[in-house]
């Protein structure tokens, strides 16, 4: 066994000090991909999200939890301006993607959504398109026609979404012929095809069985190597399993935000404690 670098000298340990390798590599400083600053969202006169500020770290999974109607979905929809498709929705505050405001003047929402992809609760492949065409739909919209490049892209995206082996012989079947879990992974492949920097997932597993859920969760672990993920979930065990950071929302406010293991073992706020231990209402 190689003990090199480990502090074996007990006298050094101050009791509570974790014994870490002395020469262990310092983790590279975590960079911030999305910074939300004083974000409020209104639907008409209703304020659905109230003055939320938080920083989403690059290539980490951030989970948003909270009871129904607490503003979680609204919150993540504002990150890529998806709320704009809802009539009467209005935003105050800032959302900075790599330092630049996605609500800034002259910013094209379509470009924002290319950089920040999204996967929804119900799998929604384009019903008239084949598996192949579903994957490249967004990619084509971004103006590439090269056949060879498209073939490569389809395989790469489906592989990244852990779906390739299951569908490689039926690429020209309709996307809707797949099972629910496969359809959801197809949607993830479609979102990945445009090479987003951030992936928003709004309850991606709530319509799936436990096996399909486990596959998506495994996929999330793999994807975070290259993509920053924000996931909204009703399933707290899921948040605990997949995320590095957890944000707890209640009544439109961010109650607590921190490292997932801390939130689930020893949260700072009583409200968080009550929610995750099932003592609500």
């Amino acid at each position, binding site marked *: 066994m190689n003990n090199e670098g480990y502090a074996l000298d007990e006298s050094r340990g101050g009791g*509570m000090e974790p014994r870490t390798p002395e020469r262990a590599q310092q983790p590279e400083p975590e960079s911030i991909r999305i910074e939300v600053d004083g974000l409020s969202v209104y639907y008409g006169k209703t304020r659905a999200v109230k003055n939320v500020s938080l920083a989403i770290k690059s290539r980490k999974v951030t989970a948003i939890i909270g009871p129904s109607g607490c503003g979680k979905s609204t919150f993540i929809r504002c990150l890529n301006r998806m709320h704009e498709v809802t009539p009467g929705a209005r935003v105050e505050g800032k959302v900075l993607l790599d330092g630049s405001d996605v609500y800034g003047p002259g910013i094209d929402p379509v470009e924002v959504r290319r950089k920040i992809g999204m996967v929804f609760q119900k799998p929604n492949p384009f019903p008239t398109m084949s598996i192949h065409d579903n994957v490249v739909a967004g990619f084509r919209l971004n103006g590439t026609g090269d056949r060879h490049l498209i073939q490569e892209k389809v395989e790469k995206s489906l592989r990244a979404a852990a779906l390739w082996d299951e569908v490689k012989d039926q690429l020209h079947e309709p996307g809707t012929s797949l099972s629910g879990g496969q359809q959801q992974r197809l949607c993830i492949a479609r979102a990945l095809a445009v090479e987003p920097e951030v992936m928003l997932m709004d309850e991606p597993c709530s319509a799936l069985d436990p096996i399909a859920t486990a596959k998506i969760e495994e996929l999330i672990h793999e994807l975070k190597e290259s993509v920053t993920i924000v996931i909204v979930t009703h399933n707290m065990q899921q948040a605990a399993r997949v995320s590095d950071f957890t944000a707890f929302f209640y009544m439109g406010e961010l109650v607590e935000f921190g490292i997932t293991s801390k939130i689930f073992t020893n949260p700072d706020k009583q409200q968080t404690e009550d929610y995750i231990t099932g003592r609500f*209402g």
Partner: protein
Amino acid sequence: MLTQHTDKKYGEDLKKLREDILYMGGLVEDQIQKAVSSLVERDSKLAETIIQRDHEVNRLDVEIDDLCIQLLALHQPAARDLRFITTALKITTDLERIGDMAVNICERALELNEEPQLKPYIDIPRMAHISEKMIRESLDAFVREDTTLALKVCKEDQEVDDLNSQIFRETISFMIEDPHTVSRAMKISSVSKYLERIGDHATNIAEMVVFMVKGKSIRHMKEIPQTI
């Protein structure tokens, strides 16, 4: 106390777990007290009874473990509940060991009661008294989620340790003076050691209570913190 669980069955199971631990704690405390009485009052019949009753402590240990595992598997507890259940798992182990110590004391009592008394028992009952108090207080701290009381228990362990050293020195001097006393002196020294171990187990419980309430570990620290 905390607000009700939305899942009533879960809330009731947690309550049952708390009550079971208290019941086990009460039983173990009584075992210690009677075990020491059987020695001090040279009552071998009582010692036999206490040895017999240990299976009740063992039964509770298994039962409480089962309940904890069920709660973990079925409810995926988090935060405070998670700390409560894991603490309960560890507390029962300590209580079960304390029960075994009571049996050991009875076994030594049975042997010592067969022979003339070496010396009047003074420090042993004092030690027993403090150890029992430590168990009681650590369980009170557990129920009331009282970290101040838990820290007090940790500090009291020193008194038991000191008495143990004192008895050790005393029994050694008996043995040096008269080798015929070796067997009895060793046994008295053992009883003292058992009581000292009981104090350690009570300290473990108290430390776990601090973890349960505050989520902070104070185990294996060189000095007991003044406050948490």
